[in-house]
């Protein structure tokens, strides 16, 4: 697609710009556009769905539905397509101004748009799982393997191990096996004490029996397939072969050290909010001790301290796909009220059933948060384990900087270059905060996080110099 076509495609203004085409973004854009707003949805991927419903339309067209939850993504996309909202794909957002200006790049051409309201629906990212050797080629995340399955139909083959904890680990194993994949085994690092802690939330989770049954069915399917499932594993390591790629994994389970040949190791350590935009906007973030992540401060509609910017979905704290879609609709309703398109009573009437549905969708969350609370071993890595993959800064280098008087993540950048590579701290941010907190004996809330600045995606000087700001000031209706 040529740059000319892209530039002329993009309206200069919109009532609402939604960033992210996952469940929260799709539902927000659909709700707002159905009620008459001019809505533009910007998404980084080539097709709608976000990560959870990645490539859902293409798979549906080929008769590959994966499961009922994934099929729900198809219904969200259908509703979006019927709503009149405009989707712009492969648009990488690098700027959001407090006044609603949004800067993004597409096929090497940068554009600025002006929105009355911006709904940030950039979802979650997988929490880093720093182990010795996790930078070796062949070590990936479970989410990455699931994206390969959804977008390219690729299935695991050969000696593929899955290690870590969390619902996605089980879901991917089930999907991969059903698609004809092979798994060498699952190395479950869930701390054994989590089960007891989760039982305290069983009462609330009974309100989500369907979800509980689904989880049990996944576990059963993996066991029936005969995949070895090693529980209570710790001290996981990845070691290189002669070529400098993954060759072996080792871990301790049942008191014995085990070593296994491996072609691929898939890691998963839960998911955390993607805070790049909200941090760069200087929105206040709060530490959530249960989910062990920072989340941007917002009210029950998703409104933040920046009046033109709202947040919906996992980006405001991990809630899952179903709750994210509802949160998207709530943010849209409040945006419409703020724009004078909906009076407060109409907003509240429309929101009432959504709030009840949200409570149902959230019923299982405390149980899941407790059951899959991350193991401290992978929150605070030891010794020479790399923390910052880009600049190759180790945990011991971070501890040494702290011992020299470095108090927080931003100072750490000048001490070590940690967080200053191309990923802009996306992977290492939370680990850095945890390591400093543990070394100082401080709370992560007090240690804080990287100060992030726009542009939040690398941008060439050529793109910046040729920024296209569409000239037509009239909003599309």
């Amino acid at each position, binding site marked *: 697609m040529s740059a000319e076509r892209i530039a002329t495609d993009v309206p200069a203004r919109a009532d609402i710009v939604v960033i992210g085409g996952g469940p929260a973004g799709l539902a927000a854009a659909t709700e707002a556009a159905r009620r008459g707003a001019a809505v533009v949805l910007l998404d*980084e991927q*080539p097709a709608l769905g976000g*990560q959870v419903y990645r*490539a859902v339309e*293409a798979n549906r067209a080929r008769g590959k539905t994966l499961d009922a939850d994934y099929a729900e993504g198809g219904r969200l996309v259908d509703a979006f397509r019927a709503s009149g909202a405009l989707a712009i794909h*492969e648009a*990488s957002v690098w700027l959001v101004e407090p006044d609603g200006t949004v800067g993004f790049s597409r096929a*090497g051409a940068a554009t600025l748009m002006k929105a009355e309201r911006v709904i940030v629906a950039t979802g979650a*990212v*997988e929490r880093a799982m720093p182990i010795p050797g996790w*930078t*070796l*080629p*062949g*070590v*990936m*995340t479970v*989410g*990455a*393997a699931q*994206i*390969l399955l959804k*977008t*390219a*139909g*690729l*299935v*695991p*083959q*050969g000696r*593929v191990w899955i290690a870590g904890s969390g619902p996605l680990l089980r879901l991917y194993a089930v999907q991969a096996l059903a*698609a*004809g994949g092979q798994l060498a085994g699952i190395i479950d690092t869930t701390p054994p004490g989590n089960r007891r802690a989760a039982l305290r939330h069983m009462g609330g989770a009974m309100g989500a029996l369907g979800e509980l049954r689904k989880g049990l069915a996944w576990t059963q399917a993996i066991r029936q397939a005969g995949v070895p499932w090693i529980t209570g594993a710790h001290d996981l390591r990845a070691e290189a072969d002669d*070529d*400098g*790629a*993954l060759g072996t994994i080792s871990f301790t389970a049942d008191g014995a050290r085990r070593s296994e040949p491996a*072609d*691929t190791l898939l890691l998963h350590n839960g998911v955390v909010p*993607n805070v790049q935009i909200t941090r760069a906007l200087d929105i206040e973030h709060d530490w959530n001790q249960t989910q062990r992540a920072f989340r941007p401060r917002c009210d029950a509609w998703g409104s933040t301290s920046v009046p033109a910017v709202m947040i919906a979905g996992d980006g405001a704290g991990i809630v899952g796909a179903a709750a994210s879609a509802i949160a998207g609709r709530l943010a849209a309703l409040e945006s419409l009220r703020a724009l004078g398109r909906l009076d407060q009573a109409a907003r509240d009437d429309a929101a009432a059933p959504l709030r009840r549905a949200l409570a149902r969708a959230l019923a299982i969350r405390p149980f899941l948060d407790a059951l899959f609370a991350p193991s401290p071993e992978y929150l605070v890595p030891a010794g020479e384990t790399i923390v910052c*993959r*880009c*600049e*190759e800064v180790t945990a011991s280098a971070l501890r040494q900087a702290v011992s020299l008087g470095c108090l927080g993540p931003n100072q750490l950048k000048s001490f070590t270059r940690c967080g200053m*590579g*191309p*990923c802009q701290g*996306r*992977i290492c941010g939370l680990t850095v905060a945890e390591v400093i907190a543990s070394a100082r004996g401080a709370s992560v809330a007090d240690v804080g996080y990287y100060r992030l600045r726009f542009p939040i995606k*690398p941008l060439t000087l050529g793109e910046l110099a040729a920024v296209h700001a569409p000239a037509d000031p009239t909003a599309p209706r």
Partner: protein
Amino acid sequence: MFARPHSDTPHLTITVDGQPVGAREGDSVAAALLAAGVVAMRSTPVSQSKRGPYCMMGVCFDCLMIIDGVPSRQACMVSVRDGMRIERQRGPRPLEVDTEDSP
């Protein structure tokens, strides 16, 4: 390692450091390479150690490659096109120096 279902025969061809590799419409560059058994896609500027895709969703920047002559592109975020030229990126991103304009 990852494999394609037998029904999904590659119908596009890209080159990696000059070697032809099959790909399918809808693949990202990183997915096409992983399907072809290519795991290491660059070496790092700091220690020249090999790296491959880690997150596949544009977060980790570990799959940076030279795609159609443009360095430091995220191979997981670029869709394949027939005839695309892919090169492994070794060490730091090369500076684009136009020697003819130099004094």
